[in-house]
C-alpha cells in the first residue's frame, strides 16, 4: 500500500492538567492501551499524546486508501510501545519509541520522538522520509504555507507543487499530473512536520 501518515503535538499548546485526568484520556485510550504505560520511561501526559499522535498518523495513512474512514481514535489500538534509548535520563534528551497500531486486521508500525517541545509520530514503512520544523507563527494559514514550503524544499523536485485531494490529504503535482509519492502533513502551534514515501 502506498501511503503516508504523520502527526505532531506541540506540548506548550496542550492542557497538561486536563490530559492527566482519566475523564480526558479515557475518551480515546482503552484500558488495554493504558496498561502499556511505563512511568519509568514516559510521563502519563507524554504517553497520552504519543498515543494520540500514533492514532492520528495511522488514520491519515489509512484514509488515503479508504476515503470513507472516519477518525475514531478508540478504534485505532496501540498494541505495542517500546522505548529505543532507555538509558537517556537527561531531561533535555529526545527519546524515541517504536510501536505497533492496529485497525481491524491492519497492523502498522510507527516511530515517535518525544522532546521537551513536541511529540512527533510517523507510520514507519519502508522508504519513508520524515522531518519536523519550528516556525514563527501558529495561525492556520502560516502553518499550512510553511509545511508546503518545507516539503518542497526538502524534496528538491523543481516544478513540483502541493495541492489538496478532495478527500483532504495533500498530493504532489508536476506538469499537471499527480505524482506517485504519498505525502502527509501535520501542524500544531509553532511546529510543522511532513512525511512521504520515497519513490523507488
Amino acid at each position, binding site marked *: 500500500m502506498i501511503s503516508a501518515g504523520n502527526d505532531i503535538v506541540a506540548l506548550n499548546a496542550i492542557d497538561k492538567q*486536563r490530559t492527566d485526568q482519566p475523564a*480526558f484520556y479515557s*475518551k480515546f485510550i482503552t484500558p488495554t492501551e493504558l496498561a502499556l504505560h511505563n512511568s519509568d520511561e514516559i510521563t502519563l501526559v507524554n504517553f497520552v*499524546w504519543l498515543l*494520540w499522535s500514533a492514532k492520528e498518523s495511522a488514520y491519515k495513512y489509512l484514509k488515503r486508501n479508504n476515503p470513507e474512514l472516519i*477518525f475514531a481514535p478508540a478504534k485505532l489500538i496501540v498494541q505495542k510501545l517500546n522505548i529505543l534509548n532507555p538509558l537517556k535520563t537527561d531531561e533535555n534528551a529526545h527519546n524515541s519509541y517504536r510501536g505497533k497500531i492496529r485497525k481491524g486486521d491492519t497492523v502498522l508500525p510507527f516511530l515517535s520522538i518525544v522532546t521537551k517541545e513536541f511529540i512527533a509520530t510517523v507510520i514507519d514503512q519502508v522508504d519513508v522520509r520524515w522531518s519536523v520544523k519550528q516556525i514563527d507563527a501558529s495561525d492556520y494559514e502560516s502553518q499550512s504555507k510553511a509545511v508546503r514550503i518545507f516539503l518542497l524544499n526538502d524534496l528538491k523536485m523543481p516544478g513540483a507543487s502541493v495541492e489538496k485531494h478532495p478527500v*483532504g490529504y495533500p498530493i504532489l503535482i508536476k506538469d499537471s499530473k499527480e505524482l506517485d509519492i504519498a505525502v502527509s502533513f501535520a501542524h*500544531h502551534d509553532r511546529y510543522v512536520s511532513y512525511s512521504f514515501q520515497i519513490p523507488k
Partner: protein
Amino acid sequence: MDRKEILTELKKVLAPYTESKEMLAGINEDTDLIKDLKINSANLVDIIIDAEAQYNIEIDFDAAEKMYNVGNCIDVISEKINKPA
C-alpha cells in the same frame, strides 16, 4: 432544548478552538470542525470534555467518534440531553 438552542450553545464550546470566527458565526449542520473551522484535531477531545460540562452530559467512546461535524455534534448532544434518567 431544541437543535437551534443546542447550536447556539455549541458555538460557545467551539469558540476557543477556532481562528475562523466569521465561519463560526455562520455555522450550519454541515460545517466540518476540522476542514471548515480549521480546528486542530488535538483539540477534539477538549471539545468533547467542554460539551460534557456545558450540557451536563456524558459522551462515551462511540458517541464521541461521530462528532466531526456540527450536525453530528447536535445529534449526540440532543440524544444525551433527552435520554431518560
